[in-house]
């Protein structure tokens, strides 16, 4: 498949935004249980969720550029929410704005200090508006992760994607980059949560390495269902395409081929393994030892670049059966 930059930016940006939001809520829940220091509503929670909202907003902008024409965003995109019964893309188009609204409300409720408990669970856990929005928002974030990943995982013709591992990867990559960003944000705003978020970031990064490792192993040995024999219905072991019917390329040759050589694809794979998994973990460990405010920020920057490469590779490794019909330029 051809990796489109709009989709690479969209999925990596909203993944990090969703992860950051869930990191903030996790911090809030921990402080509720007196496991962590409570943080300032405005400078930490409101500012942090505003940062998440910025990432989501940029993701939305990237999504607009995935449309045929950006103007379709104003004139037609509203129709995209109508087919939620059957289309995961439609479900994502509902889940993304809904989640953004919840993040916005979470930021506002923290900013407005709406921390009077609405009710108390079992006489111990005071639930206020911010917590309620945080929990609902986290659920919405999970739903959005699933919708985004299922857009790819549900296309059964792309066998490399058609696996629960795709969903696991999207969730874990989002959480890994989001928690790394939370560590970076804590370090930047001088909050003592760098270690807490750093540890979780490393845990999610390691888990993501495991599931991504499995999917790469699976994809390396995948047996494609369609062959040239079933594509044209001729029973012979030797079939070659001599002409695809045109010479200058078509939508089929542009959308479904990445056009990079095997060497470049292997290089991107190595690059993302180093940048997503190895370097950030090393940097987070070093920052824990040195107490540096810059290393977590560097860790996030490195991991984000790595994730863009990972998403590129995700597209490049998927082989569409239609390619069987487009083997020979003539």
């Amino acid at each position, binding site marked *: 498949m051809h990796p489109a930059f709009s989709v690479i930016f969209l999925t990596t940006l909203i993944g990090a935004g969703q992860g950051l939001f869930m990191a903030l809520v996790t911090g809030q829940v921990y402080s509720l249980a007196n496991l962590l220091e409570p943080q300032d509503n405005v400078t930490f929670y409101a500012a942090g969720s505003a940062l998440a909202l910025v990432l989501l907003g940029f993701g939305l902008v990237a999504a607009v550029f995935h449309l*045929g024409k950006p103007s*379709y965003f104003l004139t*037609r995109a509203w129709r995209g929410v109508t*087919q939620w019964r059957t289309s995961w893309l439609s479900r994502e188009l509902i889940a993304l704005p809904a989640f953004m609204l919840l993040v916005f409300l979470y930021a506002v409720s923290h900013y407005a200090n709406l921390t009077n408990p609405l009710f108390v669970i079992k006489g111990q856990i005071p639930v206020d508006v911010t917590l309620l929005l945080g929990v609902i928002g986290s659920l919405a974030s999970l739903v959005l992760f699933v919708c985004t990943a299922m857009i790819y995982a549900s296309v059964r013709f792309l066998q490399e994607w058609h696996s629960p591992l795709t969903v696991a990867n999207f969730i874990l990559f989002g959480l890994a980059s989001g928690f790394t960003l939370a560590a970076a944000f804590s370090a930047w705003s001088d909050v003592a949560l760098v270690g807490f978020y750093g540890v979780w970031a490393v845990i999610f990064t390691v888990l993501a390495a495991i599931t991504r490792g499995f999917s790469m192993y699976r994809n390396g040995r995948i047996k494609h269902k369609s062959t040239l024999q079933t594509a*044209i219905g001729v029973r012979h072991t*030797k079939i070659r395409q001599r002409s695809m019917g045109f*010479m200058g390329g078509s939508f089929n040759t542009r959308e479904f081929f990445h056009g990079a050589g095997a060497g470049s694809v292997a290089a991107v794979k190595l690059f993302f393994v180093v940048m997503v998994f190895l370097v950030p973990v090393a940097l987070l460990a070093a920052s824990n030892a040195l107490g540096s405010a810059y290393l977590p920020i560097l860790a996030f920057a490195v991991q984000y670049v790595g994730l863009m490469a990972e998403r590129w590779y995700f597209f490049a490794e998927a082989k569409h059966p*239609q390619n069987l019909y487009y083997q020979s330029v003539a």
Partner: protein
Amino acid sequence: MTQLALVIDLNVCVGCHACVTSCKEWNTSGWAGTMVDQRPYDADPTGTFFNRVQMFEVGEYPKTETVHFPKSCLHCEEPPCVPVCPTGASYKREDNGVVLVDYDKCIGCKYCSWACPYGMRELDEQQKVMKKCTLCIDRITDQDLPERERKPACVLACPTTARLFGDVHDPDSEVSIAIRENGGYQLMPEWGTQPANHYLPRRKTRIQIFDDELERADNPLKKEAPLPAAEGETLDDVAY
């Protein structure tokens, strides 16, 4: 229910591309138009087509065979491209089973093209909406046309009658009979998409003949003697 479809006879297709050009000619100026070309006279021409004719070589030289392979949307009975569309632009007509795109609703997200295993959908580079074969829906449903012209442009254009058109759900239709009697098959049956279009295989006409049929069963000597001509006189020379 009616399911309109094409049946393409690979045994007669000569790969002349008449269906490709007539398709483009009709549809670029019809309901599904325009089908824009980019750089048509330059080194790297490209454009939107609903129909392509490809060529495959089967076997190893000198035992090779050329298969000309026309390729357009198969109007699947279980079209995987339809449910994935977020806007409802892609749909399958209830009354005749033709799979269509509503160009006023499509946002050009290309998702449906990923969900077609055959690569039959093409995004128009100018209109930025998804396009594909409509089975000439504006011809076949046009009651103002005489009956014999209510067929897709490609079917009317084909000089070898390699393309048949009709209702594959009607067992007595020309297409159903052709599928039944000439070994019609579907492309990539492994995906369960149930393409309505069928292909007829290349076929050879051979007589089956056994050795004993080559001998003269009534030869009293049970062996072939030299022809009488070798002895100077033939049966024809004998006057009765």
